[in-house]
């Protein structure tokens, strides 16, 4: 897996714009997301111990440490850290669970907090120098979370409305005439049991994947275009530096934008999870 050696910048060393040996720009490709494993398990369907493990461990430690240290000494008069934790909990409670589930959604607040801090820390790993790989750009990680939410959705639905009640509510929309059901039920089944968890995981994965690819492109382009000692003369060298500066500005702007996207995607994932759980609690509607 990921046999080819991939680096962020153009593959050929010393390859820059305005060179005389005619090497073209090679945009970073999907090989970015297939880091070479340090330890290959040699089993089918495994990736081996690769950079994703390392970054995921860092994300895990960041998320767990954030929660541990901010709530360890929870007092009536909060410290700074505790205020941050309370701000997060208050935001998720008021904006997510209370709106999507209602008062009984407070039971699922710890789950939502976990999802949010885990996803956000995994996302933000894409901006940490040295790591620079969002864990959620590997579909396996969003898939874990989406499948957990999907299973919970079914468990809650079955527990509250019975096996038949849950699946009837999910497959047979109320107010649909009987003769159309043979068409509607398969559509609903596909929509609710396949497409929905699929989109739930792929939405997060795809935005992080694309965002990381975009940042890598700006970085690689800036590196490629930086050639002040061009053999074609100092004028071309100056132009190359100007191009490179533009790429740097784009990189910085998109880095800031990426940070925003990372927070928004974590929020969206949690919000959708809450909506699904609220739907399962509600039953038929």
């Amino acid at each position, binding site marked *: *897996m*990921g*046999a080819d050696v991939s680096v962020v910048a153009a593959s050929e060393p010393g390859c820059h714009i305005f060179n005389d040996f005619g090497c073209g720009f090679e945009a970073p490709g*999907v*090989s970015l*997301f*297939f880091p070479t494993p340090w330890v290959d*398990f040699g*089993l*089918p*369907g*495994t*990736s*081996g111990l690769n950079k*994703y*493990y390392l970054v*995921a*461990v860092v*994300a*895990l430690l960041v*998320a*767990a440490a954030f*929660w*541990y240290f901010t*709530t*360890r000494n*929870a*007092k*009536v008069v*909060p410290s700074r850290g*505790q205020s941050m*934790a*309370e701000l997060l*909990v208050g935001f998720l409670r008021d904006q997510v669970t209370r709106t999507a589930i209602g008062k009984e959604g407070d039971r699922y607040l*710890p*789950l939502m*907090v*976990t999802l949010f*801090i*885990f996803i956000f820390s995994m996302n933000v790993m894409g901006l940490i120098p040295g790591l620079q790989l969002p864990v959620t750009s*590997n*579909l*396996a*990680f969003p*898939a*874990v*979370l989406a499948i*957990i939410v999907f299973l919970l959705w079914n468990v809650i639905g079955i527990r509250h409305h019975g096996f038949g009640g849950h699946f009837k509510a999910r497959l047979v929309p109320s107010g649909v005439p009987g003769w159309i059901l043979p068409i509607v039920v398969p559509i609903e089944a596909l929509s609710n049991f396949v497409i929905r968890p699929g989109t739930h995981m*792929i939405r997060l994965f795809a935005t992080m*994947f694309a965002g990381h690819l975009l940042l890598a492109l700006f970085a690689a382009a800036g590196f490629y275009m930086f050639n002040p000692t061009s053999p074609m003369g100092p004028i071309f060298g100056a132009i190359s530096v100007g191009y490179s500066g533009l790429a740097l500005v784009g990189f910085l702007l998109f880095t800031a934008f990426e940070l925003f996207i990372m927070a928004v995607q974590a929020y969206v994932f949690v919000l959708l999870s809450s909506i699904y759980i609220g739907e399962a609690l509600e039953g038929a509607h």
Partner: protein
Amino acid sequence: MILAAEQENVLRIHWDEFTFGLIAFLVILAVVYKMWPRLTKALDERADQIEGGIARAQKAEAEADEIRQQYKEKLEEAHREYAQELEKAKEQRAAIIAEAREEAQVEARRIIEAAQAQIEADRQQAFVQLRGEIGALSTELATRIVGETLGDDAARSRVVDRFLEELERSEGSTQAEVR
């Protein structure tokens, strides 16, 4: 799920990464659940304290309201009493003035009456005196003029009386004419 280990398929899900992700999620979930009661306990305590503070403030406010009401009532009462006193004083003043005026009038009337009585008495006395003197004088005058002594006292007084009666009559008519 796409478990195919196809080369560079971005939608691949390697089960070892999946398992690791699951473990990481469960670890964070455990930490969050472990720490959750501490945070909720602090939040509940804070809510309690805030509620207690609000209750105390409401109580204090109610007390203050009550006291203010009492003061207001007292003030109104004082105002009312003052107005009453003022009214009473005014009445008393009027009564005193009226009484004084009454007394003064009575006194004046009494003085006037006394003066009138005195005047009447004096007049009466003067009249009686004059009558006697006029009788004696006229008798004397008549004696001198006539040269005859009117015999006895009885005849003399009869003459004098008749004369005076005539005089009075004529006097009364002249008085009436003057008026």
